[in-house]
């Protein structure tokens, strides 16, 4: 697997050029790889009837990364809201990110008040929260969306799509869900290769490229196979570009399997993830 490039403070044009410049003449996620991955995941966690979600975070940091149950906060809510905000701003449906965030929060609260959201959903939390919390969520989401929009500068020609949904893949016969985090799709021209971009906080870690190929693999399993996967860390002004080729797909599959093995036998040492990394 190759990290093609490490870009400092890239402009949108540079990102677009890098996203589409990979080459490929066949499907890297073959039917064989797909079926083998599903079978091996079923072997590891098939007997466990609890619901498991495997994603790039789990592949990079290990499956047991949270020591407290999930609870909504402005920080957790900024990306779900910010995704809609970025989409609205990109298509010109709203004049600015802050207005778009306020509108989206109002919509979510309205759905909750009409009983259209399930318990524990973001809308239910926002509807029950004080106005100060909702205002804070609007600012956090608009800041998040501005960051994405400034990075890729979406245009109306369709070359850049922001606010795209994450990739999800339910492994057949198991309770395992694979999640690929996606924030923008870059395709400079009709028929050009597809590049997918994902944004994260902070600094890229030592295994950042592993997380990128896992996101790319899940996107491919979900029907959006990229030629290149781009990871942006706006706090650091950095972007990593990874070729998603046969080798990258196999490595991503191995990482997911190691993650499932670590979940199945949490006390086993050494960690299967470390073995894959080595």
């Amino acid at each position: 697997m190759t990290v093609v490039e490490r870009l400092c403070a890239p402009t949108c044009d540079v990102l677009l050029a890098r996203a589409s410049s990979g080459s490929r003449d066949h499907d890297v996620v073959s039917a064989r790889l797909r079926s083998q991955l599903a079978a091996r995941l079923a072997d590891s966690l098939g007997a466990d009837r609890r619901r498991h979600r495997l994603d790039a975070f789990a592949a990079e940091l290990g499956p047991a990364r949270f020591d407290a149950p999930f609870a909504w906060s402005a920080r957790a809510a900024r990306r779900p809201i910010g995704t809609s905000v970025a989409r609205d701003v990109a298509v010109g449906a709203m004049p600015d990110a802050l207005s778009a965030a306020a509108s989206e929060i109002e919509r979510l609260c309205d759905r909750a008040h009409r009983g259209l959201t399930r318990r524990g959903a973001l809308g239910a939390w926002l509807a029950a929260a004080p106005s100060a919390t909702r205002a804070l969520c609007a600012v956090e989401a608009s800041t998040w969306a501005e960051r994405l929009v400034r990075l890729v500068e979406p245009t109306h020609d369709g070359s850049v799509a922001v606010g795209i949904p994450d990739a999800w893949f339910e492994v057949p016969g198991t309770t395992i869900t694979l999640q690929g985090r996606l924030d923008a799709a870059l395709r400079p021209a009709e028929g050009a290769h597809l590049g997918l971009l994902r944004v994260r906080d902070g600094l890229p870690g030592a295994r950042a490229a592993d997380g990128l190929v896992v996101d790319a693999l899940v996107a491919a399993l979900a029907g959006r196979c990229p030629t290149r996967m781009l990871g942006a860390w706006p706090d650091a002004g950095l972007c990593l570009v990874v070729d998603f080729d046969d080798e990258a797909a196999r490595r991503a599959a191995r990482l997911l399997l190691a993650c499932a093995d670590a979940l199945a036998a949490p006390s086993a040492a050494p960690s299967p993830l470390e073995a894959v990394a080595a």
Partner: protein
Amino acid sequence: MAPHARIVERRSDPCRISLARRSWLRTGEGGGSAGFVTRGQHTAFVTPATPAATDLLGSLRGTPALRPHVDRGLAGGLRAWLEDGLFERLGTGVTAPIVRISPRLLGSGPPVAGTATARLRGALLVQLLRLRVAGLEPASPFEDAVAALGASGRDAELVSVLADLDIDDRSRLAAEVAAHHTVLATTLPSLPARWSPRCGVRYAIPLAGGAVVLRGDVDLALGASGGSRACVCLVDLTTSTLGSASDATLAYLALLETLRTGEQPLRVAALSTADGATVVREVTSELLADAVELVLDAVARSAAA
């Protein structure tokens, strides 16, 4: 001359303002109960009355036609200068330990960590700034700030400190926050949404192969990058009075923004809610060069320590 008139005359220099006002309060020339929130004078200095509004936003905006053009080569040059300087100071053995530089490490003296209460006050004021950016006019500043801090998903340590405060300390903190918020509301009355306000913008710039990380965060960023002219303004909010360290912090933040986006910001500003003083600095190549020297000195000190 009346004390008030003397203060207004000196507004252009924030350090002198605070010194003048502090000495006036100590000598009791102003009379009344103005000054510190508590009798024991162990809380931070806050302004006794609503200060005269300084047009901070007007200063930041300036005249659009006179804004400088973005220098696309500047960020690369600064990065190269930093990398060369780090290599000279640290040599090749910089794989460990990682040096993290933050604004409080820029001074030549030993870094002073604020007390938990002071940090809590600062965090609450930052939440109030965010609420104001969202267009919410807090009816009860302290309660709204506490609700926002609790829901932020960050600063869990400060949230627990807040929960552990006894009723006296909590009341004292509430009075302080309300006083600081009055100053904030006067200095930043409203922020147009079309200025693209962003709150809590974080920086983590790796250098020397990740052995040195420049960290920082800006409370408020305004304006959009990507144009031919610089238009991003950064605002640093503090609940203490402004001093010489403020200039270093502003230069450092301007450097981080330049390295992160590849474009130098237009202006950087510091706003003290202790006395309403503001400092606005134009971002020039000289300011950024000063910041590079500050960073290199701070890295050398940290590495030696």
